[in-house]
């Protein structure tokens, strides 16, 4: 018996009992759709995060100092500057990166979700109009060497603050940070969605001022101590992506010589962070896809169930076919093709549904993130082909048992079956 005939008959029987066919295929539909959505979202997330990383600069090396180690010395800001000067082939610059917890006020309003960082003038590269973290300047200027050396009370603000506090005219205005007035000398370009707490709700100060603010807060607001705790976070820029591991090496050597313990510091390059993040995402996605694939298995069992019912219902038909000369293998292939067709149709519906939902997810995520178009759930062709193949395979696999049962029916009994 030829395959096209079996295939056509299988499609026919799907069409004649649509409700039942739909219920049979539901498991496969859900399974395939789930796999495709997860793959799409995973791809989208990975692309989005990688793009964010690249925007931040893949040349960044973050250094965090956690303690003093066994050596009785510390690495000071000056040591870091010297290191960068000593290895210009690896390091193109270094800036302290001091996070400040302080209240930002303007007029009567306080902005408590604003991120405040103390940096040096090197944080910003004027030729490329880009900071180490990927921000660009839209108005005014960035912090200068003089500002940093002299602890000038000046700051550069993000576009959200410019809009929300100063209605876009923030240049030369004054903000109060931790009770101290700061003059706005520059405004950054919008890089996120310009809302409170976002990447646009940010202030950059000279790192000395930031240290002072932190000390003032930790000591109680009265005493002013410039020589407080040393800076614990630095950002280095390597000369290129390919030199970043060599750059990491020279930084670690300095830190190791000083602290004599690798527990006291932590150096990570953006490339490493990206790799770590990507491999974590992949593990996560694999787990999710495996979970989704379980529903494909359940779908296969559903198909087996219905096919067993169908074989019983069609016992007489099987008897007729056998009396007309159908061999066991003809009957078996008819039912296997029917099961395979059912699951293949389910797979196609699942793929269509999955791609549609992935597109919907792109729109929804885009809307939630305030119109930023960075995130696109991307269904991969490989994922689609594999899930289609798996669904057909599941149908054929689980169709085998009922088909074999049909093939082994005795034609005399089958003909008499009512």
């Amino acid at each position: 018996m030829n395959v096209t005939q079996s295939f056509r008959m299988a499609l026919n029987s799907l069409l004649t009992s649509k409700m039942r066919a739909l219920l049979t295929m539901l498991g496969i539909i859900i399974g395939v759709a789930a796999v495709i959505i997860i793959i799409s979202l995973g791809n989208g997330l990975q692309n989005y995060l990688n793009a964010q990383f690249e925007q931040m600069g893949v040349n960044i090396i973050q250094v965090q100092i956690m303690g003093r180690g066994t050596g009785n010395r510390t690495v000071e800001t000056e040591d870091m500057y010297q290191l960068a000067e000593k290895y210009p082939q690896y390091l193109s610059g270094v800036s302290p990166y001091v996070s400040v917890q302080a209240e930002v006020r303007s007029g009567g309003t306080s902005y408590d979700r604003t991120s405040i960082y103390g940096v040096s003038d090197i944080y910003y590269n004027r030729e490329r109009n880009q900071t180490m973290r990927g921000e660009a300047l839209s108005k005014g200027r960035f912090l200068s060497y003089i500002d940093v050396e002299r602890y000038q009370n000046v700051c550069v603000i993000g576009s959200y603050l410019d809009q929300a506090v100063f209605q876009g005219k923030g240049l030369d205005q004054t903000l109060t940070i931790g009770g101290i007035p700061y003059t706005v000398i520059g405004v950054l370009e919008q890089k996120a969605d310009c809302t409170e707490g976002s990447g646009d709700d940010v202030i950059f100060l000279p790192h000395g001022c930031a240290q002072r603010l932190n000390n003032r807060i930790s000591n109680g607001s009265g005493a002013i101590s410039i020589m407080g705790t040393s800076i614990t976070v630095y950002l280095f820029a390597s000369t290129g992506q390919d030199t970043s591991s060599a750059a990491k090496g020279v930084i670690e050597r300095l830190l190791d010589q000083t602290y004599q313990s690798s527990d006291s510091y932590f150096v990570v390059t953006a490339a490493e962070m990206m790799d770590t993040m990507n491999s974590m995402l992949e593990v996560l996605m694999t787990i999710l896809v495996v979970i989704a694939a379980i529903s494909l298995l359940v779908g296969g069992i559903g198909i087996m169930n219905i096919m067993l019912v169908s074989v019983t219902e069609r016992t007489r038909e099987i008897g007729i076919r056998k009396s007309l000369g159908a061999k066991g293998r003809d009957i078996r292939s008819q039912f296997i093709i029917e099961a395979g067709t059912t699951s293949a149709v389910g797979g196609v519906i699942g793929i269509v549904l999955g791609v549609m939902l992935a597109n919907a997810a792109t729109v929804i995520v885009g809307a939630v993130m305030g119109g930023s178009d960075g995130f696109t759930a991307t269904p991969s062709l490989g994922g689609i082909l594999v899930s289609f193949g798996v669904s057909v395979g599941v149908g054929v696999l689980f169709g085998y048992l009922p088909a074999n049962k049909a093939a082994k029916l005795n034609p005399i009994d089958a003909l008499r079956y009512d």
Partner: protein
Amino acid sequence: MEHLIELKDIYKIYQMGEETVHALDGISLTVDPGEFVAIVGQSGSGKSTAMNIIGCLDVPTSGTYRLAGVDVSTMDDDQQAEIRNKMLGFIFQQYNLIPKLSVLENVELPLLYAGVSAGERRERALAALERVGLQDKRKNLPSQLSGGQQQRVSIARALAGSPSVILADEPTGALDSRTGREVLAFLQKLNAEGDTVVLITHDNSIAVKAKRIVRLQDGKIIYDGDAKDPQAVVQPDLEEHRGEEAVP
């Protein structure tokens, strides 16, 4: 001359728990090409078992069955399927058409399993439908046809594969008497055109339409001869035999 059907000492013995049932108790029978034989018997006489064995749906416990000179009594399922496909055309009491398939597709089925190409399949199926006068119903579903028409479709299906033997199992059982007569007349016509027909029935009035009657009782042939012979339609005394049937 070689016999078309040659049954020799056929026994079919079923073991039902403690009891041994001799459904066929040593039957020998030959049918030649062009014959029209009715196998008659009451229920339990073994005629259905005989039909299953002649139809290659079952194998005898012992004895040999040669169909067109080939020993088919020891064949496996697939070999039997092939014999059914090539040599035999079945007509059943319940028509046994597949309800989801059109009339034409039903008639094409034996050719499909014979591996005949689509074009030839259609041609031969249409020719068979034309022989039963139903070529205009080829696109209908069986349920859209009357009982008599459905039985004619099943006859067309039996003819489509150009079989050596047409096996009709109570072909009028589900029809009213007028339609039943038409179907019998049709079988007579087929026989007149040269087809070999074996009819299985419990009804004497139908059996006499054949040329030869083989009467079975308790798994044995008790009459084999011309249908016109008055002896052929003599019903054995049922009262006398009822007791025997209960004790096989």
